[in-house]
């Protein structure tokens, strides 16, 4: 019933040439997404900033939001900057309501999010 979460790990460069890790999610982000979401996060060890790409995500529920919070918890421990882009206006509102926007900048598109890091 739920669409499987796929997460690909990518790299891009910031305006200063520094490496930025990009986690590109697709499908649903829900309770069944733990291995995909947290597994991808664990594969980008280090201190580089991280972009979260939600542009191909169809559905996020409260269990999925909890996984994003777990990423932000880990990032906060090591001082890694995180920015997100590609959320629909509804999920931008939801992420702001639950406080995620306090710990990850929410941007419309990848260039704007990259420029923020």
């Amino acid at each position, binding site marked *: *019933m*739920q669409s499987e979460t796929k997460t690909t790990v990518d790299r891009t460069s910031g305006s200063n040439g520094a490496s930025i890790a990009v986690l590109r999610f697709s499908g649903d982000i*829900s*309770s*069944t997404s733990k291995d995909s979401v947290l597994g991808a996060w664990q594969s980008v060890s280090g201190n580089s900033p991280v972009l979260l790409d939600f542009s191909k995500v169809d*559905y996020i*529920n*409260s*269990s999925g*939001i*909890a*996984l994003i*919070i*777990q990423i*932000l*918890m880990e990032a*906060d421990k090591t001082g890694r900057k995180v920015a997100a882009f590609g959320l*629909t*206006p*509804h999920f931008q509102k*939801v992420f702001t*309501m*639950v*406080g*995620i926007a*306090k*710990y990850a900048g929410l941007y419309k598109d990848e260039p704007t999010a990259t420029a923020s890091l």
Partner: protein
Amino acid sequence: MVITAGTSVEVRLPSRLGFEKVAMGTAASVAQLMGFPPDRIEDLKTAVAEACINAIEHGNRLNEKLSVGVILSATAHALEVKVVDNGTGMEKQPPKPDIDRKIHGEEDPRGMGMFLIQALVDEAEWVRDSKGKGSYVRLVIRLDKENQ
């Protein structure tokens, strides 16, 4: 097709995570036919999904022999949604989630569902049945919210 006051639609879901999307789709279709704007339909979809997830996980404890009932009732100015399970309901409402406490590991990162429901609809009421036969959450989303 237009949905008028008094129309009721009922869906029964197996207590398996993922089936909340069936209720989401049904609620969205009914709301669209009633004339709700797209942003309110998105609010409704998330609230209905979270109510169903709570019913599946906590009310029916993922017991697939039990079903979750979703009853959508149109009135002249609002859509009411009841999500019914076989649990005994909550004794008390959980505290409002605190993102700072979650980030610092002082609070479970989960537990956003009820907060989202309350934030996204115009009314949310949890009704207990201590016999475990019909606890439900009742949600109301109004057509003319801007004029309230």
